């Protein structure tokens, strides 16, 4: 923190023999109001600092609750401020169990304000007793039921970029690349984890998501495959391992 402050606060060295045509600095022109002062690019505001810190690469990661999966993800858990895509055709393969422990952890660990979770267009009703059993804070869960896919994407973008939600889950049939990019940018701006559930048929389309997972039915147990891992190695994950 202190180091960042120094780096941000350091003013541009003003040469003594500055040429006449140079843009007037603060020394020559007294700022007429607080507005002018704040508009000056050299003024470092604490708010910017906290915002940039949120975007810094050393963001927290959330443990997935499965050591086998943690070991395969860069940083050892779900990355925050990014978009994760889960390709899955049917529900019931344990896809929520990949995320629920992480959400519980992030709500528990928050000091002061408990972050929100937003579930947009879930396939069925989220069953409150089950979530309470797992430890999710129900007072901080927002279920959003848009009518059209466009509204769902808009709602996801709003929720991701608001900075209120820790995680935004979105279930979609299909969408175009442009919207995914917008969601990714919103997730980075709001510092939230965006999780997008899509059918398997989108597997071979390009996607800006930093992490893509494929869940299919296996012989005995569901199969989890990492298709794309930014900063990691794709491949099958053996969930059965402790």
């Amino acid at each position: 923190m202190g180091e960042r402050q120094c780096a941000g606060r350091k003013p541009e060295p003003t040469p003594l023999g500055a040429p006449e045509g140079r843009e007037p600095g603060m020394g020559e022109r007294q700022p007429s109001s607080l507005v002018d002062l704040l508009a000056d690019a050299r003024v470092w505001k604490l708010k910017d600092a906290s915002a940039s810190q949120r975007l810094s690469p050393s963001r927290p990661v959330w443990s997935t609750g499965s050591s086998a999966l943690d070991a395969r993800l860069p940083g050892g858990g779900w990355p925050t401020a990014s978009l994760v895509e889960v390709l899955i055709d049917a529900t019931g393969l344990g896809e929520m169990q990949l995320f629920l422990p992480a959400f519980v952890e992030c709500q528990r660990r928050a000091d002061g304000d408990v972050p929100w979770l937003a579930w947009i267009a879930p396939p069925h009703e989220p069953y409150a007793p089950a979530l309470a059993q797992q430890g999710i804070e129900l007072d901080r869960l927002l279920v959003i039921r848009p009518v059209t896919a466009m509204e769902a994407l808009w709602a996801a973008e709003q929720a991701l970029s608001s900075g209120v939600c820790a995680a935004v889950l979105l279930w979609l049939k299909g969408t175009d690349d442009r919207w995914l990019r917008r969601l990714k940018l919103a997730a980075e701006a709001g510092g939230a984890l965006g999780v997008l559930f899509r059918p398997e048929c989108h597997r071979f389309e390009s996607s800006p998501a930093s992490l893509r997972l494929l869940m299919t039915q296996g012989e005995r147990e569901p199969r989890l495959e990492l298709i794309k891992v930014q900063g990691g190695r794709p491949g099958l994950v053996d969930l059965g391992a402790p």
Partner: protein
Amino acid sequence: MKAHTVKTQTADLFTAPAPAPAPASAPAPALRLPTPQTPPAPRSTQLWYAVVFAPPAPVLQRLSLHAQQFTSLVSLEAPNALLLEVKGSLKLFGPLEHLQALIDARWRSLGLQAASAVAPSTLAALWCARAGKSLAIEDPAALAGRLAQLPIACTAWDADRLQTLHSMGITRLGELLRLPRAGLARRLGPAAVLDLDIALARQPGPRRAFVARQRFRERCEFETEIDHVAYLGKALEPLVGRCAQFLRERQAGVQTLALKLRHRAGPATQVRLGLASVTSERRRLADVLDQQLSRLELRAPVRALELASGALQPLSAVSLDAFSGFGNAGGPDTAAQLVERLRARLGEHAVYGVSTIPEHRPEAAWRRVHELQLDAAFAIAADRPHDAMPRPVWLLDEPSLLSRQEALQPNGWILEQGPERIESGWWDGKGVARDYYCARQARGAKLWIFQERHTKCWYLHGVFA
């Protein structure tokens, strides 16, 4: 206290009530204070102007606004009278006669027939005005004598009580005041005695002051008709700014706004906006209006706009960001802002929360919550007890019947856990008798299924995701 007074005092009303005996348990005073030998004389620091309007009864709220130019304390007396406290107004409006004439002239200028009176107590003034006696009494001690001539009908008591008095042969207030107090309370009820006490300024008669309802309402006419929603947003900006200013000046906020778009012909288009929490911030108001306008389809070009606020509500004190008003330093949203933006576009019921209900039947153990806890200060509740048996993350709206083939496949299902017998709800006609199992399909999906105990049919009710 009142009952005590009524029971113990038998003296007539003209003698003031004796001072109450000191309670026995009170400690003896260290200093011997001089005890007042004479009971306190009735005194009043107020002076009330009452006006009674002749039928048809006018709208009192509107007249109160007129009356508020003479005094800040105006009280309504349904159906046709107003009470004005004028003691404080004497300094500005001259002697009492002048003030009374001034107010009376106001009613005449409005074309109303009215009778007025001034007295040190509310009921005395009201009764005089009802009796049509244009009295102006300033001395509280003179009240009893001046009221004596009034007919008892001017008290506007209920018909039973007036009939009782009539059968007693009492027609004037003076005759009533001469009766013993205890007997009066027994015959007419303590409320009547209290009324008399208030009228004689021996008891305070508190009144509810009239407070004008405040709303922001402003209209904006266009020189040319606007047929595009985007231009409407621009035209609204100054109105929203003035509305926010209006609210800030009153330290108040609104939770609802109404926007009316007037067309050349046909009815006006009404847009209602609800906010998730009380606010007076321009940015939030503009945000919600923008969202609503973006969904709006104009039927016809708009000639005029009208923005009206809902009822003003006191704004709870929150610390504001010193810099958020400058430039585009917006700062992050709050949960209330997010929910309100989502609701403005998706509809009120598209955004909700869920909560648990302590109930055995799975479908009745949860509900949707539309009043969300949006305040930032929020503590995690202590761990509540949960069912020991696992519950699925997804619950189907209705249990779906599994076909016979599905249910009887020899290795189609592996029952992993169960049975959990749930038998409940016989009292409200939606009784269930089921055995629940956690089942794993051969291909991997984990489901929550149950067997109806009476029909032996199998149903799918949830999905462990």
